[in-house]
Structure formats: C-alpha cells, structure tokens
C-alpha cells in the first residue's frame, strides 16, 4: 500500500487512537498488500474505533459526552468542591488555590494516598490563609476557571492519559504541581510532594 493511502486510511481513525497508533499503523499498512478488501477492512476498523470512543465517553444519563466525562467521580467531586470553595469566599473565578482545597477535601475522604491527614490539614490552612475573603456568593451562579486552573486541568489530563487512566485526584495534584509558579504548587512542594516521585508511584500502581 502506498504511504499516501496508508496516511489517508489512518486519518479516518479517532484522534485519541491516532495519538497512540498513528506512526506504527502507517508503517504497518505500507507493508500490507493493497486491495479493496484491505481498504474496506481498515475503514470498518476506523468506524469501530469511533464507536468505541463514543461509548467510552458516554456518561449514563447524559446525551452528549461532556468535558468532565474523562474524570473519575472523585475528581469530579474535587472540582465541585473547588467551585464551592471559590463561591464560599466570594471569588468570581475558580483559582488554583480553590482547586487545591477541593482536591484536599476529596483526598481526605479517600484516605489520602500521597498526603497523611495532618499534612493535608496544614496545606488546607496554608491555602485558605491566602484567600481573600469577600462576601459569600450563591453557589448556583456560573464560575469560570482561571487560566492557571485551565492549565492545571490540561496537565492533569496529560498525566492521566500517559497512564491511560481517567483523571483522578492524584492526577489533579500532579497538575497543580506542574503549574509550578502557582501558590498552590509551592504549598505542595513545601509539604514534601515531589512531581517525579508521585509519577513513579502512580506508574508502579498502574
């Protein structure tokens, strides 16, 4: 099969599949005899992967896959708590510190894989002391994420994706650490959390 044809057929697959298999699939197809049946077989394969991707992202009770459907329940709750923390102190935006507080709240309930209870409390207090208190706001309003927070979520997704996991609270912690200029990351670093050590631990447990 020609390289052009191989590239075209590979491009029919879903993006996430291509991120993993693109290179080797193109090589593989180039070494495969071409023909209408091989072509149809690959097209069917692409349709099948699209169907799987749709099924994987579908959250029961929703019509469409949402941004947070790749998040574990605990990570989703952590983000919910972050929103609560932000509205609680009257912030108009969800900042990295709020996200950290949300994660800690959820982390404590989960028994804490990276932090023991006393460290978690110390970190929460330290993060909370930085927050500027304003008037409490109604939680029903729409709160946007700060640019820092958006980057943290993107990093968390990357960390989870690397291990082919759904985003969990451990990945959110990694994401916060990676946004190293943020106040939240410096608190975590000062409590002895290390990006590489955490990554290694997660990879071992995978």
């Amino acid at each position, binding site marked *: 099969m020609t390289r052009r044809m191989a590239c075209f057929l590979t491009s029919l697959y879903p993006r996430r*599949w291509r991120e993993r*298999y693109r290179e*080797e*699939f193109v*090589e*593989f*197809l180039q*070494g*495969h*005899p071409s*023909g209408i*049946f*091989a072509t149809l*077989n*690959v*097209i*069917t*394969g*692409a349709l*099948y*992967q699209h*169907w799987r991707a749709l099924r994987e992202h579908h959250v029961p009770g929703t019509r469409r896959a949402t941004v947070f459907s790749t998040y574990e329940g605990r990570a989703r709750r952590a983000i919910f708590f972050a929103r609560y923390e932000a509205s609680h102190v009257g912030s108009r935006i969800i900042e990295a510190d709020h996200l950290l507080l949300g994660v800690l709240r959820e982390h404590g309930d989960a028994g804490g894989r990276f932090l023991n209870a006393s460290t978690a409390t110390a970190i929460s207090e330290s993060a909370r002391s930085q927050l500027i208190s304003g008037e409490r706001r109604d939680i029903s309003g729409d709160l946007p994420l700060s640019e820092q927070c958006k980057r943290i979520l993107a990093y968390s997704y990357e960390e989870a994706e690397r291990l*082919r996991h759904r985003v969990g609270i451990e990945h959110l912690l990694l994401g916060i650490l990676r946004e190293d200029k943020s106040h939240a990351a410096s608190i975590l670093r000062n409590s002895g959390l290390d990006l590489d050590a955490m990554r290694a631990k997660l990879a071992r447990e995978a």
Partner: protein
Amino acid sequence: LQAGSASWHDYYVRRSTKRSVVKSEPESGLGYFSDPPLLVLASLASGPKHGHAMIEDIVGLCGTRLGPGTLYGAITRLEQDRLIESLPPEDRRYPYRITPKGAALLHAKLSTLQRLARAGLRRLEAQ
C-alpha cells in the same frame, strides 16, 4: 461488529487466499474460526511479534487471515486491557508481547475451548 462481520470476513479470507501467499488453507471453508483477540494472544504465546508476523502466524495456526483493521482493533483492545504490551520498535516494526495476565486469560479460554471441542467431537463420534 464481531458477529456481524463473520460472513464478510469469510469472503475476505477466501479472496486473499485466492490471491496467493498461502497455498492450502483447508480450514477457510466450514471450519473457519475468527476471534481476533484470542488469535492474537495465541500467536504471541510463542514470543513477541510485529503485525505482519502475527498475521502470517495466525494463518498457520488456523487458516484465518486477519485484515489490517481487524488486527489493530484486536491489538487496541488487548493493549487497553493490559493483556499485551508494546515493545520498542525495531527497524520500523512495532512488536508486541503477551503479559502474564494475557497468558493466564489465554490459558483459561483455551482450556474451555478444549473441553468444548472434546465433548462435542465425542458426541459426534457416539452417533
């Protein structure tokens, strides 16, 4: 997709046989068997292999010639379930090897198949 494409697969197999590569495939008729993930596992049981080696090996095992899309569909599922894992590429070929979990699953599946095959054949002979 698995069940629905059986007849189409069958056609594909016969066509590709006709086109050469493997001269005699006695099983490509009624005895046709296709469970791509199981075939990939069985192929990798004898050591790491890349895509084309797996296809030829599986033809030798049971006469089934997997199409490129079918093979990678199986590889994707098996890798996600951690039944196989990829090895570093050699010479632009991407080999895979079976994991202990994959080997255990293959053993269990084949034992079931063996029981079924034995019992079924015995019943036929008894008639």
